[in-house]
């Protein structure tokens, strides 16, 4: 059994469904990718696993768990905690909270059913997260050394000099030159690439078994991106960390992932081992994404074949394939009920795939 097994994860914000029954697993020492464009539910999936979504009206009485000390919280998610009891009682609207259902089994424990205190003990220690924007994920008024030792104190009981020494070790390990001096610096004094390294240092401070990286290189330049991807690969290879990589960049996926799940409108539309996916993309959305990327290794005036329309053109999965309004292969069966995810190793959610193949 894999280290993390996500089963039928559903996240809804009031009436709108962000994640609609997503299942995948992340084995130890492997990199699993969640790929999709903005609004496909990839980030919400990761936040749900980490228990970082504000609580909605559904599910058991779980408190909002945003105040956890050990890790930075993506901006914009704070302060949305609704008053759970009153909403649950009225059965009415939820005010910004998320209803999370399904299971996320980490090493035998369902993370989604853990009490907030138990989750806090695990978060930062067994599972950690690296966010997209390092500047807004680090506390601007606290030196970075303090932000690293905070985790070490909380989860590993290290204090004072010992903690600082370990913090310097961590910075050294993620490739920051002159770590002892850097410990006293504030986030604004570091470059984007260095900030991202600090964030990774915080995430790996307690040698987590699962690392979730949400667009860790999107804000960085390509040469810095290459450095950070090497660093993450190295972590997976030497420590056997399981890495859940969330990205929109199929190039990054090709370079680092072992398994890929392509998300569209809250559901997995295709999942396969990385080589298989790129060699035989089956779902029209995956094919469309690949056709949209200008490539350096193809003839120069190869025209792009973009996907038409935008992500706003969807129908509900309940009524048919959500991608149907943008799909070139659309036919009558596409809008007659829910398409199922078929196949085992290479699975896809397209009723027309067989006809075309």
């Amino acid at each position, binding site marked *: 059994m894999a280290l993390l097994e996500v089963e039928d994860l559903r996240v809804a914000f009031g009436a709108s469904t962000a994640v609609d029954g997503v299942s995948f697993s992340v084995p130890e020492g492997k990199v699993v990718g969640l790929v999709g464009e903005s609004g496909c539910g990839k980030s919400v999936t990761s936040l749900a696993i980490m228990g970082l979504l504000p609580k909605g009206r559904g599910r058991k009485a779980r408190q909002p768990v945003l105040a956890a000390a050990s890790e930075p919280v993506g901006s914009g998610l704070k302060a949305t905690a609704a008053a759970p009891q009153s909403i649950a009682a009225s059965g009415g609207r939820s005010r910004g909270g998320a209803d999370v259902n399904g299971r996320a089994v980490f090493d035998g424990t369902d993370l989604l059913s853990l009490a907030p205190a138990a989750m806090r003990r695990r978060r930062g220690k067994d599972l950690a997260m690296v966010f997209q924007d390092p500047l807004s994920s680090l506390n601007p008024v606290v030196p970075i050394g303090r932000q690293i030792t905070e985790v070490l104190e909380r989860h590993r009981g290290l204090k004072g000099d010992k903690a600082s020494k370990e913090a310097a070790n961590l910075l050294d390990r993620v490739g920051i030159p002159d770590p002892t001096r850097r410990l006293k610096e504030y986030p604004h004094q570091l470059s984007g690439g260095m900030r991202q390294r600090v964030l990774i240092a915080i995430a790996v401070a307690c040698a987590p078994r699962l690392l979730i990286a949400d667009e860790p290189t999107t804000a960085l330049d390509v040469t810095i991106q*290459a450095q950070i*991807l090497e660093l993450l690969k190295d972590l997976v290879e030497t420590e056997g960390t399981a890495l859940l990589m969330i990205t929109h960049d199929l190039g990054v996926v*090709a370079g680092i992932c072992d398994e890929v799940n392509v998300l569209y409108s809250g559901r997995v539309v295709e999942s396969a081992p990385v080589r298989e996916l*790129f060699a035989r993309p089956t779902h029209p959305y995956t094919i469309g994404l690949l056709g949209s990327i200008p490539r350096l290794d193809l003839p*120069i005036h190869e025209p*792009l074949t973009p*996907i038409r329309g935008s992500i706003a053109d969807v129908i509900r999965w309940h009524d048919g394939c959500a991608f149907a309004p943008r799909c070139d292969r659309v036919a009558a069966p596409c809008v007659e009920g829910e398409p199922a995810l078929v196949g085992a190793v290479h699975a896809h959610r397209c009723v027309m795939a067989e006809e075309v193949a």
Partner: protein
Amino acid sequence: MSTEQTEPHVPAQRTEEPDLSAAATASTRLLEVEDLKVHFPIRRGIVVERTVGHVQAVDGVGLGIDSGGTYGLVGESGCGKTTFGRAVLRLEEPTAGRVRLGGEEVTAMKGERLRRFRSRMQMVFQDPLGSLNPRHNVDMLLSEPLKVHGVGSKAERRKLAVETLDAVGLPKSVLERFPHEFSGGQRQRLGIARALMLRPDLIVCDEPVSALDVSIQAQVMNLLDELQDEFGLTYLVIAHDLAVVRHLSDRVGVMYLGKLVEEADSETIYERPRHPYTKALLSAVPQPDPEVEANRERIILKGDLPSPANPPSGCRFRTRCPWAEDICAEVEPEWREAAGGHKVACHFDL
């Protein structure tokens, strides 16, 4: 900003070459930039501000774009590519150098003449939401450039707006809508439509697709291609994504720390990069193909971009260059032609 010259004027290294071909290319060369510099003063002091140094954002960049062509300028954040694009349009005051558009010297213009001339050169910005006034509807947004330049009556302006919307693939019905009602891709189409309203000769596109989703990026790139044919546009495309630049451009220049380090036809530069920085950039771009990714050799550059206020001596790239030798710290490499039309600033033939 300061226009004082703080250093002796370095004669442009590439002035000899255009003179010979000037007659032949005069009809086709739309934009000619010579030795353009933009230095921002660093000021210190509370009551009396003293200039304690200069950030050399752009430090002697020259290039030319043929009419109907596309020049792609690539580089990482902080290399000065955006400042260069803005200085070409006089949105940033150049410290030195010359910019000529269609034979007229933009850098020598002032006041009303410059204001009028601006109708021939427009810009498309990176952030489509930030560059559209949220309180203006599409009709107002698109008519404004025409009003500023006193073109047409209200009805004519509206007609032109509808035509331009059609060209960028938006229906007439959006005229009454506001920027927040559009998706990112549609907003970028509006940004492009606004730049097109005055039917300019040159459009500077600063990161035109980087804020957009992959599938939308492709739509906007195809649109830029179509519009170029339809309106006979000349583009200066500024981007950090090498694949995007390769796709859009005929000629590509690579910038590092305020200077061009390499320039060639887009096919050549990607097939046979000659500057170590270009090689490193190309090797760092992740390719959407696991086979390619598994087998490629990556040149991982160490460290970050040095400060443009205090660039390294000699070759500016030497602090991160895997091939650097002593000479690189002492002598600044000259901007030389390594092969037909392929220019590079490096001491070595790599």
